[in-house]
Every structure is written in C-alpha cells, then in structure tokens.
C-alpha cells in the first residue's frame, strides 16, 4: 500500500509542469506580443519612459554616460542627449510639456530633464537639442524628484529646497529652502505646492515661494504628495515599516493613518482611488470623505506604479530575477493579480509606458537591466523558441523527469536499491536547480527574523551631505576610502558598482550559479574580498543582499 502511495505521489509530481504551464502564460502575455528590444548597454532605467512626438524617450543613468535617448517606433535611435556630470542614479521622471505662452514668455513643445548634478535641461523632443538649461543647487545630489508644471512655470525639487523656473527661458523665479530631500517629488494643486523631505517634514509652498512646514512625521517622504477628496495622502517611510497618512491640506492635521510595510513605492492616484505599495503589499484605497482600503495583494514593489486609464495597474517587482505584476481593478471592487513575463528580469523601479500610435496599443518596459522591451497589443504569435533554448537546464530537467519516473516504477516493483539510486540522484538534481533561489529566500527569511547585532558607525570626517545616503568604504593597505552620497541602490552589488565607478576603480566580478562574486577592486585581488553591511559580515552573494537607503557597506581584503 505504501509503495503504491509513494508511486502515486511521484507520478503526481510529473503533472506539476502541466499546471504551471497554464499559469505561466498570463492573460496579458496572451494578448500582447513583443515588437522589439533595445539594449542600452549599461545603466539603469529607473523612471518610466515617455512618449512624445511619436518617439519613445528613455532615461538611463548609474553608468559612465547618463543619457536621455529617443527611439523611433521601429526601435531605431532618433537622438541621444547625455550629461556626463550627472554621476548618480537619475530618478527624476521625464516631463513633457506642450507648447504655450504665459506671462514669462512663449515656449515650444519641451522635454524637461532634471539631473543629479542639479541641471535642468529643456530639450526639443523632436531632435534632442537644448532649448534652455538652468543650474540648481547641489548638495551631494541635485535633482532626484518629480517636477510639476504650474501654468507658465515648472517647479523642481532640488536637494535642499524647491525652485520655480520659467518655461520660456529657464530663468529662476524663486527658490525656497525646505529640508534635505531625495526622490522628493513636488505636486501642485491650485495655489498650493506640496513636497516632503528626508526628515519627515511635509512642506506647503505658496506660489510666491514662501514655504511653511505643514506637518512632521517620524520618517521620510519620498514622493509627491497626492490630493484625494479625503485629504492629502502622504506615505511616510520608517526604518522597519511605513505609514500612509491622510491630512487636512490646509492645516496638516492628521485625519487618518494606515500602517504599511517597509520601503514604500511612489503612490498613484486616479479619481477616487489611490494605489499605495511597499515591500509587502499593494493596496487600493478608495477615498471619498475618508479613505478606506478596498483591496490588497501581497507584492514587492518600491518604485513607480503604472496605472492605465482602463484600470490596469502594472508595477515592477523590485527583487532579483523578478518580473512585473499586473493588477486589474474592476468595478472598484475586485483586485485581481497575475505576474506578466516581459522578458526582462531583475530589480526595477520604473513604471511601464502605455501609448497608442496609428491605432495600435503599445506598452514599453525597462528596468535595471538597461534593456527596453516594447510590446504591442495583438495575439501573441509563436516565438522562435530555439533562440533562447537553454539546453543545459532543459537537459537537467529532462534527466530529473526520467529519474522521477524511474523512482516511481522502482518503488512499485519493490526494487529498493534502484529506487534509492534514482531518488537520491533526483534529490541532488532538484536541490541543485533550486539552490540559488532557495538560498536567497532562506537568507532573506533568516535576516528578517534575526536582528542585526552590529552597526557601522558614522565617521565625523564624512561630509554632512552623506547623511541619510548610502556609503561604501573600501580598505586598501589598511587605509579607508569612503564613497558616500549614493542613493537608490537595492543590493550590495549595485551599490558597490556605483561607488567603484564614481571613484574610477576597476571592478571585476565572477558570475556563479549561486550569485555574483566580486573578485577584485581597483586591481587588488589578494585572497578575495569580504563585505560588511552596517557592520554585519556578508554571508551570501552580493547581488542577493537587499540593503537600506542608509546602509554602509565596507569592503575588506581577506
């Protein structure tokens, strides 16, 4: 009886792929097919592309040549505009402004680009030429948040304040000091301008440029506040979790609050519905006189959330080897979820771009892999499988199936010795296939459940502008070289790479089956390198360690 039961279980395991094959092809994937791919070679796509003047415009950064690139609809390069001085991750979303005129002058169609070196470039979307340029303050970083247009002006968040600039010539009307900000977008509602900062202060700025602190929270505000009918929505980030606050937009008085998970995403608003998300859940709030959570689904996203006008929400899952999540919000009630496979995997914070051209619906996706995939709404055709066929993995899976079937047959026939042989080999194969993901998930679970026992102390010699940022320390021959002011890096690998590039250090890695191994830094290989995150010795591969926005990573030669 036991033998038959075991054989039944083993044969049942063989049916698993039939179940998963139905699940893997999402409804979105069935309706959309890939039109083309554009590989930028290096850098991150950290913010959503935009569609202007029949061109898809993408910004890439975090590498040696931060750029804004315009692509034609067929995927060919139209133009490229670079800013070699912008050394850090550019996260300020691109902003398209239609031509117009106002008290300060006349302007054509513009593409506004804010850079981390404090520059604002107003480009002609048709050819990428510069219409005007303005320079804002830099304190470690320049512009990292979303700008907003107010009549004939654009309002940009700078590192320590907010400035208003004329759309016609880029001249600065005013600049007012607020607090040290990062990804601190600005929103404009009537005569009120709102923005938050890293100290948790919500600022209310009047059109004349006077700033007042409207409210203060224990945490960081890293998005443009949203005005719902129930009040001003602010998602405040704390070290271990976050809180969504609904405030009186005039007095800043707190009306409601909802506890949420760590590392919140940039919230999005459409009519009476708001979407907030974090590393644990994506929630839809319905806001009338008050806000209430309509629905929530476990999902890990930390960047922009795309919300199509037809109700579809798509957000990048910001985890290694991850994909995008698609949420359909029907009739204001049912929130359904499915993963969609857009063929780009890994960390991501950029929302997708939806646009229509010549009656065809397109969706563009980009993430930290520096690749843009354009999909068009059509019946997906059979793709050429042979191009991406992984013979090694398929061979192992085939072998595993043979062993699985053999194990079932051997146990049925009572051949214990052969059953042990086939099942033991099967166990090894399955564990080897699962090892990278299993070890990462396990490490994350261990890290979440065990508190860090050590810390890396702040060095008083470091510049104040590094406060609240990510810092990397390299040790060479007993001397420390610190690189700070870094932001937005999700893993030890990404942060170390950025620090090495900023310092001009060469940097070699080895890719293995269980992750990335950094073999030399600045030509120093020695017996290897060890890393510490906030004082705790690194235990897994550098691409599998999630870090905080204020983490200090130390590299020590062994």
């Amino acid at each position, binding site marked *: 009886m036991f033998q038959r039961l075991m054989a039944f279980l083993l044969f049942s395991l063989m049916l698993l792929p039939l179940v998963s094959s139905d699940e893997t092809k999402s409804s979105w994937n069935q309706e959309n097919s890939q039109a083309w791919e554009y590989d930028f070679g290096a850098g991150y796509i950290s913010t959503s592309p935009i569609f202007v003047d029949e061109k898809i415009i993408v910004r890439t950064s975090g590498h040696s040549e931060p750029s804004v690139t315009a692509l034609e609809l067929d995927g060919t390069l139209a133009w490229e505009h670079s800013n070699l001085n912008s050394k850090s991750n550019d996260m300020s979303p691109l902003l398209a402004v239609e031509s117009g005129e106002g008290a300060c002058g006349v302007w054509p169609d513009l593409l506004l680009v804010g850079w981390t070196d404090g520059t604002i470039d107003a480009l002609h979307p048709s050819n990428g030429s510069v219409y005007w340029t303005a320079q804002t303050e830099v304190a470690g970083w320049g512009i990292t948040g979303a700008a907003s247009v107010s009549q004939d002006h654009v309002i940009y968040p700078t590192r320590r304040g907010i400035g208003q600039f004329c759309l016609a010539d880029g001249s600065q009307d005013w600049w007012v000091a607020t607090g040290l900000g990062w990804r601190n977008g600005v929103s404009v509602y009537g005569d009120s301008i709102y923005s938050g900062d890293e100290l948790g202060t919500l600022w209310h700025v009047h059109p004349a440029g006077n700033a007042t602190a409207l409210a203060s929270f224990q945490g960081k505000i890293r998005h443009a506040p949203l005005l719902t009918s129930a009040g001003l929505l602010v998602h405040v980030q704390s070290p271990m979790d976050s809180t969504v606050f609904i405030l009186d937009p005039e007095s800043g008085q707190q009306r409601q609050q909802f506890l949420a998970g760590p590392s919140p995403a940039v919230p999005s608003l459409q009519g009476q519905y708001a979407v907030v998300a974090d590393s644990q859940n994506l929630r839809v709030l319905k806001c009338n006189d008050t806000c209430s959570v309509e629905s929530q689904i476990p999902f890990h996203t930390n960047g922009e959330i795309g919300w199509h006008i037809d109700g579809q929400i798509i957000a990048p899952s910001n985890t290694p080897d991850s994909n995008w999540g698609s949420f359909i919000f029907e009739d204001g009630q049912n929130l359904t979820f499915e993963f969609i496979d857009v063929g780009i995997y890994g960390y991501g914070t950029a929302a997708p771009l939806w646009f229509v051209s010549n009656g065809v619906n397109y969706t563009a996706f980009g993430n930290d892999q520096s690749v843009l995939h354009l999909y068009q709404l059509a019946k997906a055709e059979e793709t050429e499988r042979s191009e991406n066929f992984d013979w090694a993995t398929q061979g192992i899976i085939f072998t595993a199936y043979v062993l699985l079937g053999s194990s079932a047959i051997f146990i049925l026939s009572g051949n214990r010795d052969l059953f*042990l*042989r086939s099942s*033991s*080999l099967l*166990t*090894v194969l399955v*564990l*080897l296939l699962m*090892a990278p993901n*299993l*070890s990462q998930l*396990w*490490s994350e679970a*261990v890290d979440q459940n*065990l508190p860090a*026992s*050590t810390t890396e102390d702040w060095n008083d010699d470091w510049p104040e502008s590094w406060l609240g940022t990510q810092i990397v320390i390299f040790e060479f021959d007993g001397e420390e070289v610190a690189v700070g002011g870094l932001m937005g890096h999700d893993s030890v690998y990404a942060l170390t790479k950025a620090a090495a590039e900023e310092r001009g250090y060469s940097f070699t890695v080895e890719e*293995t*089956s*269980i*992750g990335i*191994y*950094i073999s030399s830094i600045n030509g120093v290989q*020695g*017996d*290897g*390198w*060890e*890393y510490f995150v906030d004082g*705790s*010795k*690194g*235990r*897994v*591969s*550098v691409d599998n360690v999630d870090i905080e926005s204020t983490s200090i990573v130390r590299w020590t030669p*062994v």
Partner: protein
Amino acid sequence: MFQAMGVHGPTLSPFASLVLDAALLGVAFWLLAKPTKRPIRDTLFLAALVLSVSLIRVVMQPLPNIQPVTVAALLVGAQLGARRGAAFAVLVAMISNFFMGDGWWTVFQAAGWASIAVAGSQLSLVTPSGLNLRRAIFASLAAAVWFDIIVSFSILDGTIGFVEFMTYLLHGVPFDLLHMAGNLAFVVWMGSWFCNLLEEQPSLEEIEFAVVNGHGIDG
C-alpha cells in the same frame, strides 16, 4: 560566506601557510607511520586513492557543497581504520586545496574529514557481508552536518560573536541540505563498490602463511 568563496578566518602569510602545510603533512605521515607487511603496495594504493578523490573534489567544485570527500573519508575510515582514514582526509584536504585555494580553512576541512574517518572506523559500517547501507546512509547524512559545522568554525576570527555565528550557520542550511543530498547519492551509488575497492586483499605470502599455520595447528 559566499563572497569569501571558501575564504575564512585570518589571512595567512606565505610562511604561515608553509608551516601549516608542513604541520598537516607531518600529521598525515605520523598517522601512516605504522609497520606494514606491504609498505610499497599500501603506500601506492593510498596515494592513488588520495589523488583520485582529490581530483574528483576539484572536478566537482562547480556544484555547490557537493562533497565527495565526506563519504570517501567515512568509508576509508570504515575499511582501512581510523589512522589511515584520518591521514587520507588530511592529504585530500591539502592536495585538493592546492588547486582550489589553500588557507586557514584547510585545517578545519582536514579536521572535519579526519573526524568523520575516525567516526567511520567506529560505526561498524562494514559487515562481513559488505556495506551496511542503511547505517552508511544515516552516517553520511550526519557527517554532512558535522563537517559543515566544523568548517564553519574557521570564520571565528575574534570579530564574530555567538549570535552572528549561529546566524551564519542558519544561512548555510540550504547548502547543508545539498551536502546531505550529495552524500546520500554517493553512498547509494558508489558506497558498496568503494567499500569493495578498499577491502584489504591478503597477499600470497599471507595466504601461504595462513595455510601453513593452519596445517601446523592441525598437525
């Protein structure tokens, strides 16, 4: 653990590495320094065994924590005894690490496999009818955990506290499972064959001596 890529503990200078290797070699020779009737044959056999298992370890390096040496040490200990088993473990650790990376951790690997060989010699894994497979399976699974714990001690360089060490061990659990699964496969597939290979065959002189001695007793 991973970033260090097997690199644990204090960094050793070239001289310290030399002393360490000399000490390990000394231990191996001391363990082998026992009168034997067939010195050349025994030495050649052990050398071939050490070299082949070292080669297998080097070749299997890309498979994370699949350690053929653990089962080999267990069975060598069971068949050839604690001394030769421990010597085998020390030599395999040294020779394979010559290709895979030598250092402070070699001591712990050698100690781990040597202790497994000693345990193998005490666990009655081999009976007159051959390898006791059930017992060998349990021993190989336990040996995987034991070896991983012993080797983990090599990270203790004075900067790591108890909680951190336990966290380190917890992080390694998936790789312990791999080690256990690998051991299980080795025992099931190769255990009996390897045991037969190691079985000491009496020489012609020994057979003759036994026969004559037997006749003498009979007489």
